[in-house]
């Protein structure tokens, strides 16, 4: 059971979509996130940088077939924050009261 903790950093819709995509994966290529969420390169870079600075996302740049790939994945802290945020949203829906689960 995850403790409910509303996370303001994750909550904006675009960032929430990105983090939820990463939460169901071990790692995801930059291009996949960009295409699935219909974001521009710069918009996605900005969102990933914000999450990276918060320690929620790790970015790797392996070279494969002479092509540099950019892979993103959630860190343990990011995964914990996401689960806490989802639990907070579920608590609000379940009727714990508006804003009752806000923890940050």
């Amino acid at each position: 059971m995850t403790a409910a903790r509303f996370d303001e950093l994750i909550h904006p819709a675009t960032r929430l979509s990105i983090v939820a995509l990463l939460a169901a994966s071990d790692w995801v290529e930059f291009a996949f996130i960009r295409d699935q969420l219909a974001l521009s390169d710069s918009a996605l870079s900005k969102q990933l940088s914000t999450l990276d600075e918060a320690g929620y996302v790790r970015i790797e740049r392996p070279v494969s077939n002479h092509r540099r790939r950019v892979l993103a994945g959630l860190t343990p802290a990011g995964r914990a924050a996401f689960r806490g945020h989802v639990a907070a949203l579920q608590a609000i829906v379940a009727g714990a009261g508006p804003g009752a689960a806000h923890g940050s």
Partner: protein
Amino acid sequence: MDGEMTPAEARAALSIVERSRLRVIEQIDVPGWYWWGLALGWVGLGVITDLGHPWATAAATLTFGTVHAAIAPRVIDGRHRSRQLSVRTDVVGRRLPQLVIGALLVLAGVTVAASLALAADGAGHPVTIASIVVAVIIALGGPQLLAAVRRRAARAAPPA
């Protein structure tokens, strides 16, 4: 965020989470070439068995098993349909490899039983005929199995 969130807003946020989760679940699959390759290998084994040379059957079975053992672990977990992401094991389900191998063992048994039945009935090339039937089941049933796995993953509650 003003610190207050209504249940409707929370529900909308959860639907964003669910949409992203479903996008990843859509990527759960085993490559199509795996099922077709398996089906062709199955028929090949049947044809060689019907030739009636035990050493050829043994060598073909060993080769088939070795190639499959080398390839299967990398593809039948269903997590790497695309090179663009790796689906988490807890999203796919931990038992998919056992499910695929179990299904293949059952189909091996079906092939043997059908071959014996066809041979008893006097059919020519009984193993080839049985293998073709099972190969069709593999080629058509494999993707259906993965579709069922995706539906099951979609119904499962996300971890919280």
